[in-house]
């Protein structure tokens, strides 16, 4: 944000309108990074396609470059071989960013509990919203997206993640 003057941030009358405008903009223009590895990624494709039409929620600009995205959607099983790559992608996304664990595998490892699978991506990166299901229906995904929007709605430029305090 680059707003460092704490006196400005203390001025509620000034900050609240800015928050409202920024959050409104961010909420309805999430650019998802589709980190799709498995079955859930096919359902993500279904969400993006005409029937469910993710653009109704303003999130249809799906990017495959972490530097152009702010919503990391992890759809599918993350193996130990993939884990460092997921971490790297997460680190490359600029703040502010949000993470959705899409599907049982991303949430908790799902039905795979063995020598090669990570037991939930929250062991690697922070997660904002968990969408359960194997795979979740497109409706469940959209519900998760709305939850992300709600999280964004409640944020303020006074939050530590923006002003670095």
């Amino acid at each position, binding site marked *: 944000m680059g707003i460092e003057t704490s006196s400005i941030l203390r001025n509620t009358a000034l900050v609240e309108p800015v928050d409202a405008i920024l959050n409104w903009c961010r909420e309805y223009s999430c650019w998802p990074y589709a980190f*799709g*590895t498995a079955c859930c990624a096919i359902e993500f494709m279904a969400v993006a396609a005409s029937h469910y039409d993710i653009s109704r929620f303003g999130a249809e600009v799906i990017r495959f470059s972490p530097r152009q995205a702010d919503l990391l959607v992890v759809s599918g099983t993350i193996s130990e*071989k*993939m884990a460092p790559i997921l971490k790297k992608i997460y680190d490359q996304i600029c703040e502010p960013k949000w993470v959705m664990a899409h599907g049982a595998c991303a949430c908790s490892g799902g039905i795979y509990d063995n*020598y090669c699978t990570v037991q939930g991506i929250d062991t690697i990166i922070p997660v904002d919203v968990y969408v359960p299901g194997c795979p979740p229906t497109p409706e469940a995904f959209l519900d998760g997206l709305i939850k992300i929007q709600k999280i964004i709605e409640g944020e303020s430029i006074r939050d530590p993640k923006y002003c670095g305090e």
Partner: protein
Amino acid sequence: MANVVVQTLLEKFPESVSPAPDFRDEEAVCVAREGLPEVLRFLYADPDTEYRLLEDICGADYPEREKRFEAVYHLYSVKTARHLRLKVGIGEEDPTLPTATGIWKAADWFEREAFDQYGIRFEGHPNLRRILNHEEFVGHPLRKDYPIKGRQKLTRPSNLGWDERKSAGNGGGSDAEAGQPEQMILNIGPAHPTTHGTLRVLARLEGETILEADPEIGYLHRGFEKTAETLTYQQVIPLTDRLNYVSAMMNNVGYCRAVEKLLGIEVSKRVQYIRVIVSELSRIIDHLVCIAANIVDIGALTPYWYCFRERENVYELLEALCGARMTTSYTRIGGLAHDLPDGWVDKCREYIRERVPRGIEETDTLITKNRIFVDRTMGVGAISGEDALNWGFTGPCLRASGVPFDVRKANPYYDYDKFDFDIPVGSNGDTYDRYLVRMEEMRQSLRIIEQALDGLPEGPISIEDRRISLPEKEAVYTKFGALVQHTKLIVDGILPPEGEIYSVTEAANGVLGFYIVSDGTKRPYRIKVRPPCFAIFQALPQLTEGSMIADLIATVGSLNIIAGELDR
């Protein structure tokens, strides 16, 4: 007929070949390690047999045996339409075998997998390194003494030794001054849209021309085979959904058919017909996803909307059947989870007569004669029929190269020989032909569904044997005997006889094989999946070397690599 090959081998190689236990009429022999190359070369070249397709090589571990490991080869002859299994025992102290890569190129990755999972070393293999597990992994996870939860962290993503190769070549760019064209190493994936999130290709480029491409897989390795060894036969069904998750039904059908072969039972005609219908519906949606993704990768977004609209229609049918859109788990060993719901047949008929053909025709109108699409795909990623077979290609990718091999015609199962349908074949084996073959296969699948719906017989949807199929739910709640049977089957599981089988079906990507070893207990001793796209993807260097980077994108999309079955 059945054992002609076995007899010939026994007579011709008396020292190295010995008969394997006879089970379910499968042709199988044991071969001594020393005689293996000779036997393999004979089987490949002998004009009577011509085992030109190496379907699978896998390992198995028997700690109590003197020769602890076993390598199992599954060969197929397109000429005689028969499978042959070779089993080679290897001692633990020296687990080496001569490589088969000199005969079948397909052996390359299968041998690497056997090395990765069991530690069997193949001497003479050009590139014997790990394939599914990461390079920091210690041990061999499918060995019986490796704990299933023995997780090992990877500290940093591998560069696959390309730093060394870079400096060995002129990748540093320093030779540019010496008049050499500058080369660069380009990493594509696994986080790249065209690689579907899980494939990785390292390419050495000169300008935009690919000099060398090295595919790396295993990013979605989920330990299917190890997990399956800890479950009962029924419990494995949900895991099979997630092999080729784009057409989960076909995996359900393939797996259940394999276990039914192991048990020596045959399901009723009604079950067979329903399985045909759901398989062909799955083939259609699988091809739709493949075409949609391929075209999006090339740069055309519009057909994607049309393809996915029809896919949603088929999902509606599948959801009505089993409650899930993708991960269906609809089949059961010995039958199906439940019968078709009321009105399903009429709804299905309406969909396959009106909606789905409409989507196919619209896609056809949009792209088949589209000049950009034709320019981008014609002659791109071409492979000859002979090469394709040698690499282990099956399914649409093989047929696009002009080899009319389809399990549904060659070894018909479930009355496929009674349905009237054609096998489309291409002539150039390029990306465009693969697209055309898929388009035509969808139309043929519609024909099969139509006939199967017309001829759908009445009958039970589960076999009567109470050691295999659960009693009716209503009876479980009202009758004591049924409750006991239900409980007993859940607790004890299905107990197949001791033995091993290999069963194949024609899945959307090609031959889907299941090799199951039973030790007579309720859990499978070993399950090996023969995934069709595993063999196909290993040919990527041959398909792309010498072409442009953009052609690689078009080619990968047309191969329809589904990571779930590729990495398992």
